[in-house]
């Protein structure tokens, strides 16, 4: 068991695909109320780490604790219900559902009504449905007017790329998480949108009270939001600390120069 002071803790986690070690002996943790950035060159294992935490992959070795409870072996939906929400590196929405419906799916794990409620529509179900709608709208309004108004009734695949990213985050927010994990949220956004998103990440903690774990390549964002930065390479942690500490760490510099990845 973990001692429970960390919100999320990974101990000696390993995950390999055939002969390729995506993660090997990864130790890291996230404290409540922190914004932690994970950086590293392509193929460093960042997304694999996300997938292990959220239950899409089962680790080959090691342990993952959330609030002192092991997450290993739980289904993704159970982990989401415990309060861990995520977005994906490449956008994964429900493309033919409306924007509002996408966000409403997020509330699924916080609500209960089943077949009986669906068919007979008792008052409790109607109230719950209204609450789902309300929460979904609140989540969409986190992004101001970007996902407001007529857009909410449009299918998700009609949105612009940046708005799809925002919708994915809104859907994660709608699951009422404690820990929100964002996988390269600014990928493909223009400089203005990137700066806007930087503020959103900080607001997620200050306004919504989430703990944030974010994979990010844009160093201005990393610098602007992070309480702590963790650098990965070859599936293990090579540096950890404040942005300046990590940015000046020789191993990190070497990892980036060696691969000439984003900067």
């Amino acid at each position, binding site marked *: 068991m973990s001692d429970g002071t960390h919100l999320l803790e990974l101990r000696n986690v390993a995950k390999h695909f055939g002969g390729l070690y995506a993660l090997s002996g990864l130790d890291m943790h996230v404290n409540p109320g922190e914004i932690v950035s994970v950086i590293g060159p392509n193929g460093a294992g960042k*997304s*694999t780490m996300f*997938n292990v935490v*959220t*239950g*899409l992959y089962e680790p080959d070795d090691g342990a993952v604790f959330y609030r002192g409870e092991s997450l290993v072996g739980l*289904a*993704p*939906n*159970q982990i*989401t*219900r415990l309060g861990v*929400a*995520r977005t*994906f*590196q*490449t956008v*994964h*929405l*429900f*493309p*033919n*559902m*409306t924007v509002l*419906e996408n966000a*409403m*799916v*997020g509330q*699924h*794990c916080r*609500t209960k*009504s*089943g*077949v009986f*409620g*669906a*068919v007979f*529509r008792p008052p409790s*179900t109607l109230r*719950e*449905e209204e609450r*789902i709608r309300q929460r979904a709208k609140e989540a969409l309004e986190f992004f101001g007017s970007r996902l407001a108004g*007529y857009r909410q*009734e*449009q*299918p998700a*695949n*009609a*949105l*612009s*790329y*940046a*708005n799809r990213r925002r919708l994915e985050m809104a*859907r*994660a927010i709608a*699951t009422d998480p404690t820990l929100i994990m964002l996988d390269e949220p600014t990928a493909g956004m*223009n400089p203005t949108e990137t700066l806007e998103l930087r503020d959103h990440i900080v607001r997620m903690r200050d306004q919504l009270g989430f703990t944030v774990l974010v994979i990010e390549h844009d160093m201005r964002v990393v610098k602007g939001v992070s309480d702590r930065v963790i650098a990965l390479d070859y599936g293990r942690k090579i540096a950890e600390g404040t942005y300046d500490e990590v940015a000046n760490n020789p191993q990190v510099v070497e990892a980036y120069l060696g691969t000439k990845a984003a900067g």
Partner: protein
Amino acid sequence: MGPVPLRSAIGGGLIGAVVSIYLALVGLTERFSDLELVGEQVTLGRVLLVLPPFVAAYVVTRPRVVAGVRRVPTPAHGAVAGAATGLVSIGAFAAAIVFAEWFDVNRVRQVFIAASPTLIEFVTFERGLAAGIVLLIALGLVSGVAGGVIRNASPQLRSPLVLGIAATLLMGLLQRIIPVAMRELGVEPDFLYEPSGGLTLAGGIGVFVIAVVASALWTRSGPAARERARSTVREQPATRTALLVVLLALLGILPLLVGAVISEVLGTVMVFILLGLGLNIVVGYAGLLDLGYVAFFAFGAYALGLLSGATLNTSAGAAAPAFSANLNFYIAVIVVVILAAGLGLLIGAPVLRLRGDYLAIVTLGLGEIVSILTQSRWLAPLVGGPQGMRGITDAEIAGYSFRAPQHFYYLALAFVILAIFVSWRLSSSRVGRAWNAMREDEQVADAMGISTTRYKLLAFAMGGAVGSLGGALFAVKIGSLTPASFEILVSITALAVVILGGLGSIPGVVVGALVLIGLPGLLREFEEYRLLIYGGVLVAIMVLRPQGLVPNVRRMRELQEDEVTQDAWANPKTEGETEETYAAVVAGGRLGAEPEEEIDE
């Protein structure tokens, strides 16, 4: 020939010829040579001779986009190109006839048994080879020209003409149904139909004119009227209720109007509507491709038999099954539905981890197991083996039996309305949303907190429950059961109903069942060619309308088009975004309901 390339005309004409030759060689042309549709001259066999050149010309002379410019042929261009197409089509067919004669048709007949001297006589209009061929080519030429001209006539003219032709032919085809229904209503059909069958010449012309005029009026004011009606229905709940009442009243008196024969067909249609609605939950809502759906149909039928005191057929006469209860139909049906939901869980459990093709194969196997069990020696003491079961309840209430087609209709209608209601409520609920999400992207749905295990099982259970209702009704309808009714074809038909109508669409299921079950049921003349026509229609509809007849994504398509215009107007500042949106819309529109590309990493 204007914008129509010669190559297309030749190609289209050759395809028409292949269709003609095919129709002749499978025997359709000769089989229906005597079936009079309008007057004495227009027989179905002759229609089959001129239809391929007509359709080929109609298709070939369509407007084309050449180098980004849409080029619409004038009617004159259409006439020339249509003539060329029709000539190639009928010419190649005529060449085949001449070849068959030269080669000796009786030798051809050793391989193609339908190629008889009678066939040759028929296609040459019994006027000898030379004169007959000339006449045939002239007819093909005329129908080719007609196809080309009609295709390129103004829209106000085109659709009324096409509709008029179709309506006249259909009225002629329904010559065994409509006169009967008219007599049922106390109207003598003499003024419309010949005693020998088809429409009278005057009747045919009358039908054509009425259809053309009605359609022309509708083309002129239809869209506006439709929009008016739609907004009235949207804004006035009272109107909606009134419409619903009228619809129910119409459905209520329908069997009295149409007589026993059509009522019988409608009964079968409704059994398949129930199957389609159930399968629609599994395939349309939850996205689980189930090819073994016949399992629930069989289970519903046999379980109802056992629970309501049916007996087994044996060589020594009727025998009591190994297990039997003597419940009232309405209690038995509730028990059956609950048990079928349980069976759904049982079938769903082993296939939880499978997706797509693999799921389809395994469910196919499970369905086959059930239909083999119905014939098996092992279960014979329970379900009667190959000889089956008889004496199934007629679901009577206070002495009113539901066995007769016109009575069964009401029982089936009640169950169909119930199933539609449940389907509709499910689709617009938290459960429906979860299924929808799971269908669009199972892995992401799971990551967003939806237990895919639970909702897959739920879909199988609900689908099974509705499907078993179809089985139970079927049992009441025919009163006795044999394994022949529960073969794999039922699964395929139910799936075809759902896909043809449009996955996930409730009206789609109704339309799909009417087209796939209703039409063949009405056209009994075609009994031996039923599957052939069925296959052809399925292929044609799926090619022309892959999203189904009544797709449920249409609303979303319309919205997508809105987005383009709205963004172009409303967001002049974010140009990049607008372009992206436009590209996404275009891609989305082209791909339709296709999910996005596969998962990351």
